[in-house]
């Protein structure tokens, strides 16, 4: 069991128009075995929050901790999956997956074995030697996921990993993600702007609001566990309870927008 915690008073960027407060007063824990999803429109600070967890961004005030130990930079205990795959296009699928192991000096044969097993786990059996440029967006995201898993991270940080995929591919990836999560028990932090995706995947859902970025609501949906218990995805997404929560979230987001429009 591990917990990745952000206790952050603020993150301020210096921009051409002066200081911009990207995040303000955010406290959030990602524990092993949880899927924490940050939902919000662009500019709500969810990417900054992921950057904090990953160690790409340092808080202006506050800290990020793993089991009480401060995070000082990026590291393989928190592997990141990016929206635009961020793969190395000159490497084959297999070498991309094995990239993190190569950095550690793991031998070729062992790397290869791990990479092939992971490619099979993400449904890319037989694609080891394929070039990244020959792969579809969905396949690339699977490679990105396998690459992150290869370094045996304690936490998976996912920056809108399914945002660029078509509807059907997206749903398949959601199911794959939950199965991998169940098998590994890792702590996952995922950001998305899709209400439905957030509800389906999250064990904890935080709704974020912009200017400055902050958490405005927290929910604890149980649809992910219901899916893993055997309930079909379509039944869950058509469940009146699911639809009611989706509408409630949409209304909350809309009300926040109007509030902002009234008061600036």
């Amino acid at each position, binding site marked *: 069991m591990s917990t990745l915690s952000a206790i952050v008073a603020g993150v301020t960027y210096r921009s051409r128009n002066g200081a911009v407060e990207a995040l303000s007063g955010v406290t959030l824990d990602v524990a092993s075995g949880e899927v924490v999803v940050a939902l919000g429109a662009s500019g709500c600070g969810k990417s900054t929050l992921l950057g904090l967890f990953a*160690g790409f961004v340092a808080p202006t005030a506050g800290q990020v901790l793993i089991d009480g130990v401060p995070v000082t930079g990026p590291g*393989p205990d928190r592997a990141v999956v990016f929206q635009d795959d*961020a793969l*190395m*296009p000159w490497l084959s699928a297999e070498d991309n997956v094995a990239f993190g192991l190569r*950095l550690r000096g793991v031998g070729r044969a062992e790397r290869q074995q791990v990479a092939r097993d992971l490619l099979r786990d993400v449904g890319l059996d037989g694609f080891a030697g394929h*070039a*990244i*440029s020959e792969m579809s967006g969905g396949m690339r995201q699977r490679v990105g996921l396998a690459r992150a898993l290869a370094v045996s991270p304690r936490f998976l940080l996912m920056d809108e990993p399914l945002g660029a995929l078509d509807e059907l591919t997206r749903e398949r990836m959601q199911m794959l993600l939950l199965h991998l999560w169940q098998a590994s028990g890792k702590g996952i932090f995922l950001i998305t702007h899709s209400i439905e995706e957030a509800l389906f995947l999250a064990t904890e859902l935080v709704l974020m609001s912009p200017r400055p970025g902050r958490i405005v609501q927290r929910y604890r949906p149980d649809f992910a566990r219901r899916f893993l218990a055997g309930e079909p995805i379509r039944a869950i997404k058509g469940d009146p309870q699911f639809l009611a929560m989706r509408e409630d979230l949409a209304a909350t987001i809309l009300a926040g927008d109007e509030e902002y429009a009234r008061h600036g």
Partner: protein
Amino acid sequence: MDKTARGHGWATLATLCLLLALWWGVTASGLVAPLFLPGPGAVAARLADLARHGFVGASLLQHAGASLARVGLAMIFAVVTAIPVGMAMGLWPRVNAALDPVIEFYRPVPPLAYLPLIVIWFGIGEATKVILITMAIFAPLAIATASGVRRVDPDRVRAARSLGASRDQVVWLVIFPSALPDILTGLRIALGVGWSTLVAAELVAASRGLGFMVQSASQMLVTDVVVAGILLIAVIALVLELLLRWVERRFAGWSGTR
């Protein structure tokens, strides 16, 4: 061959045939005297003769070899200096701020303009030519490398760092391969610049080389050697270009496909 040219090879061929016919026409009809422009047949015969007997004390192979050796040596010097310098410029804005003005200052100056200075400093030997051509190649290669490094997707660097890459690993396993397509394109352009500079340099101070051969032939009014030499210079440039395109496809074929 470029994608745009594929399937239109006949148009290229037609132009070549037309030019050749025109060349043959104006010379065979006596419209232009052989002193000004010898016919294709005469030039071809002269080429065969040059290959057998050489010209002013050196064989054709020695002339071409002298030119190629100079450009090859300069290329090696430029690669081992310009690529690291360009990498440093791309990685660290401070290095860029320090070196960019120098490179941008001399880059637009035609190499032949500073050739006299190099001759004063280094004489008319081999060193001068290799230095001149190295300088001509250095600037475009360093600039292409720096801009390639700057264009690297920041997420790719973040991905590597979150997988545990050290600073050096990020540079050599992520940034360098990411920039390689730009570096190779820069190299191809630089080689073109270098080749034309070299041949021009040989017009001024040399006793061997294709540029020298053309220059001395022109002084002796052996026009067929002049034309043959020009054709040979063009063909070698084309072969070098195709060679580097092949290298680009082989080592950076992944770029442009996404």
